[in-house]
């Protein structure tokens, strides 16, 4: 007799006896097997893949070649297009009764035929709490969103936090080309180009400030998994988008005492 027999219902399912009458229908998810197991271990069940897409015409904004400034029209486009895709994904999650969406991937695709047209896609797996606990909902009772994987979701809950919302900040910045006269003065010298330094510094700073502001609005205690990207979406060479993204988190009920957080053991994985 096998020590760990396959449960009867799983055997039945494999035989095709129950698949026609499964009460909750079927789910689809881009979870891996490990992710699925850990999400389940965390007390959640996937309900379905949620998707939001937005094809956006990004407006045009010119900057003088010698001036550094934020391209606020582009910042706004990049932000609202992502926000639209995210809110459509959230709506889909809500319509399927999900408590949240995890493993969200936020992607930007450029259309070959028009450099101003970008597609923004948000895809993630909607999950529900297995016993219907309502305390995991996000901001204003809406489904929470998070770019954390199933594994990270499990770990986050064990660290005493729950995800609230994916927060982001975008800043598209035009970095001035330095004036020719000024460049001449620099021949043969090592100098800090303060106009470049401050432009790049400021752009990252603005992106982070905006993300922090979003987290504050969401009532978060902090933002985990912060990532700073730079990208130039086929704009002129001196226009760069700085994009900050992360998952805003909040302590589960009141903050857990650190002593009850399990200390991870040192292990050596032997399966890879």
């Amino acid at each position, binding site marked *: 007799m096998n020590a760990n027999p396959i449960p009867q219902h799983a055997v039945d399912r494999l035989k095709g006896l129950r698949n026609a009458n499964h009460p909750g229908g079927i789910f689809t998810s881009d979870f891996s097997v*490990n992710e699925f197991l850990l999400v389940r271990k965390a007390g959640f069940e996937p309900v379905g893949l949620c998707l939001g897409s937005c094809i956006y015409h990004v407006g045009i904004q010119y900057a003088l070649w010698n001036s550094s*400034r*934020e391209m*606020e*029209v582009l910042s706004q486009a990049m932000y*609202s297009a992502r*926000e639209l895709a995210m809110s459509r994904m959230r709506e889909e999650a809500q319509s399927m009764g999900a408590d949240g969406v995890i493993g969200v991937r936020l992607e930007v695709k450029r259309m070959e035929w028009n450099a101003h047209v970008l597609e923004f896609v948000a895809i993630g797996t909607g999950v529900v709490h297995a016993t219907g606990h309502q305390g995991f909902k996000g901001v204003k009772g809406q489904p929470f969103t998070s770019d*954390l994987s199933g*594994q*990270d*979701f499990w*770990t*986050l809950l064990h*660290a*005493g936090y729950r995800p609230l919302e994916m927060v982001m900040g975008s800043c598209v910045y035009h*970095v001035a080309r330095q004036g020719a006269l000024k460049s001449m003065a*620099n021949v*043969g*010298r*090592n100098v*800090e*180009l*303060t*106009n*470049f*330094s*401050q432009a*790049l*510094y400021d752009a*990252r*700073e603005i992106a*982070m400030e*905006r993300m*922090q*502001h979003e*987290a504050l609005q969401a009532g*978060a*205690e*902090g*933002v985990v*998994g912060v990532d*700073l*990207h*730079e990208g130039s979406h086929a704009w002129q*060479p*001196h226009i760069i988008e700085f994009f900050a993204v992360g998952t*805003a988190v909040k302590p589960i009920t009141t903050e857990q005492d*650190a*002593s009850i*957080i*399990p*200390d*991870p*053991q040192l*292990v*050596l*994985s*032997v*399966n*890879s």
Partner: protein
Amino acid sequence: MGFFGITRPDPAAGQRSLERQAVWQQALAQNRLPGFVAERLSGAASGKMPWMATMTPAELLVMRSHGIRPVATVTGTCALHYGFSWTRGHAEGWRTAAARLVEEAELCQANAIVDVKMRTAHLGVGSTMDYTLVGTAVKVEGLPPSTNPIAVTVSTIEFARLLEAGIVPVGLAIGAAYQWLQGDWYSVEGSWSGDNQPLTRLGEFWEGIRREALSDMRIDGHRQGNGVLAHIQFGEMLKREGDQNMASYLARYIIMGTVIDTQDRHPVPHDIRTVVDMRDNADLLGALPRNIYPTDNEEGAI
């Protein structure tokens, strides 16, 4: 939808950008940071604003259970034009970025900066490079704010692990080397021949640069502790063609690591268990120390 209420270029926004730049200019000239940066950082330190961390939930878990708290994501940027010397310019750029990174950490009353990574934005302007360091400032419970918080390249999880094992991370060691090689490129690159052959001149040249940078880092590390771990690096070789088949090759290599202070044969306070790992993409090779720290083969991170 966020805080944008505009759709057309807004003259006021342009004005605000200019004002912010003026503040930056004044601040950088006085070797300090603008008020709005201080506001974001001290807001996070006091708990009025949310904290921001590059760490994963696993790292958050370890931090919390070890009495360490994330405060804010901190950066240091310096764009440098090296008209005089690539060598000194390159080192100076990274060192200035590191100094600004530490300054931000001080503003948020942190004790350390973990997970320090190198980034660059390619401006496409000759003899110019943007040097940026990004990391997460952390506070250790029960410690007063440090006047000169240490910066380390190790991740948060490894930072806690080191402390737990009685190994003290004490700072950042930087090693850099830059060199020109002149020669006729046919002989340097072996172009006349269709044979397999090692390019000895170029190979020795590049190897020499790497060795020099490593030894530079070792010296820098020796001043601070007795080991340098967790290297992050950036290297590239450029070619400039000259007259009569002559060419100049510029190779530059910079390497940073976390300096540790540890006793000889100090015991590790944990048993090691073997397990089946539930992470995806848990690639054994990827877990080797030389590969976990980003190098220059990925876009964005260098």
